[in-house]
């Protein structure tokens, strides 16, 4: 029990790293997802093709493999470039590698979410906006985007929950998130079960809290939608 008290602050610190990784990568993923959805829905084949390739390739391989590729491969690229220009190579930061990989992977999932949501907004809504004399930007941010968000929210919530849990794998490229800290504490105290359970509990807390938050958002964004009762 003493060991738990001793190491608990460190694991809490590590949970902050986990939250930071999750928030930054979801931000990156949403931006990539919006860009990906825009290019998938574009009229130009040259814009559509890369987006289709992006979503297909990324969703076909495990996040861990891509993360190892970015982390170890990125280091080789850095070393080669440093070699060519005769400068001292720097070590790739696992935090940066982790956030960019998770963001890049979930960008593909968000692309699909946003694409479906944009398509779910009836074309008549946009036409009505144009008929009122709004320009394209006004139609986008007053009509298309808010309604799209309502359709996208369940998907966003789902992606976020999956993303949150996949942050645990950043410990495998050496980032000192709470999983790695629990691992270390478990080794030194010979009580791995206790410390992994603590981490599992913290993850459970995170997913429960986000589930509650997503629920509230969904209620707020479906104001004015009629629901049929069975």
């Amino acid at each position, binding site marked *: 029990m003493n060991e738990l008290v001793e190491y608990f602050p460190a694991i809490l610190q590590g949970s902050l790293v986990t939250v930071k990784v999750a928030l930054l990568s979801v931000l990156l993923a949403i931006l990539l997802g919006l860009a990906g959805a825009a290019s998938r829905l574009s009229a130009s084949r040259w814009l559509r093709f890369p987006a289709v390739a992006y979503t297909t*390739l990324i*969703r*076909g*391989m*495990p*996040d*861990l*493999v*891509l993360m*190892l*590729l970015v982390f*170890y*491969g990125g*280091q*080789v690229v850095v070393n*080669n470039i440093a070699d060519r220009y005769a400068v001292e190579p720097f070590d790739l930061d696992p935090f940066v590698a982790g956030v960019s990989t998770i963001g890049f992977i979930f960008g593909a999932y968000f692309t699909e979410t946003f694409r479906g949501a944009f398509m779910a907004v009836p074309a008549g809504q946009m036409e009505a906006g144009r008929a009122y004399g709004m320009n394209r930007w006004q139609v986008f941010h007053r009509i298309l985007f808010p309604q799209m968000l309502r359709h996208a929210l369940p998907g966003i919530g789902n992606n976020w929950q999956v993303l949150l*849990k*996949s*942050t*645990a*794998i950043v*410990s*495998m490229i050496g980032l000192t998130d709470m*999983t790695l800290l629990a*691992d270390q504490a*478990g080794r030194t105290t*010979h*009580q*791995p*079960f*206790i410390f*992994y*359970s603590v*981490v*599992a509990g913290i*993850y*459970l807390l995170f*997913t*429960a809290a986000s589930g509650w938050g997503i629920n509230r958002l969904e209620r707020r964004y479906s104001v004015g939608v009629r629901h049929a009762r069975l």
Partner: protein
Amino acid sequence: MFDFAIIIESLPEFARGTLLSLELMALSLLAGFVVALPLAVARSSSILWLSRSVGMYTYLFRGTPMLIQLLLIYYGLSQFQWMQDGWESGNPVLLLFREPFFCAWLAFALNTTAYTTEIFAGVFKNTPVGEIEAGRAMGMTHFTLLRRIVIPAGLGRAIPTYSNEVILMLQGSAIASAVTLVDLTGAARYVYSRHFAPFEAFITAGIIYMLLTFCLVGIFRMAENHWLGHLRPRTSPDKQR
């Protein structure tokens, strides 16, 4: 920069890793399917305590990362004295927990069971009321109703969602290398560390995973055509000709 000789030389490693990944996935899915069926019936039942206790299990396993579950089983359980005593006295069941393959299988199976239970329970609950009423009107018992109507019709409707779970399981199994198993990802890590060739190692593994994913997608598309053919959007008559 991309050395194909390394890939060709390491093909046996990749092949063994692929086999291990497929084996882990298949065994976990098999166990998951078999256990999830009765659990889903319990989860969708109107007996509150039964549904709630299964819901508790799925909530715990769906709310935490599978990596943590794996580490808890493989490294975590060794903390307990009774486990170590069991190992020393040669208890055959407890000795299994020293095997990384068994622990990975157990963690993956527990995890996929939780997701599959919720998928199946969802479709069971959505059985059209008329079908159940028709069954009752024919004088079916509760068990017959489940066996003849709710489960077969529900499993068909579950195929699209279940195919997603199968693909997630294939990709999720990549964490098996965290407990020293040389699955496909483990093979890639081995090739990387031996040749210091990250691109050759991880891109090859990524391509193999992708091919496996496409195969699974194809198999499930065939299954959908077979069992869900009646739900396909109708094509216009001139297209059918």
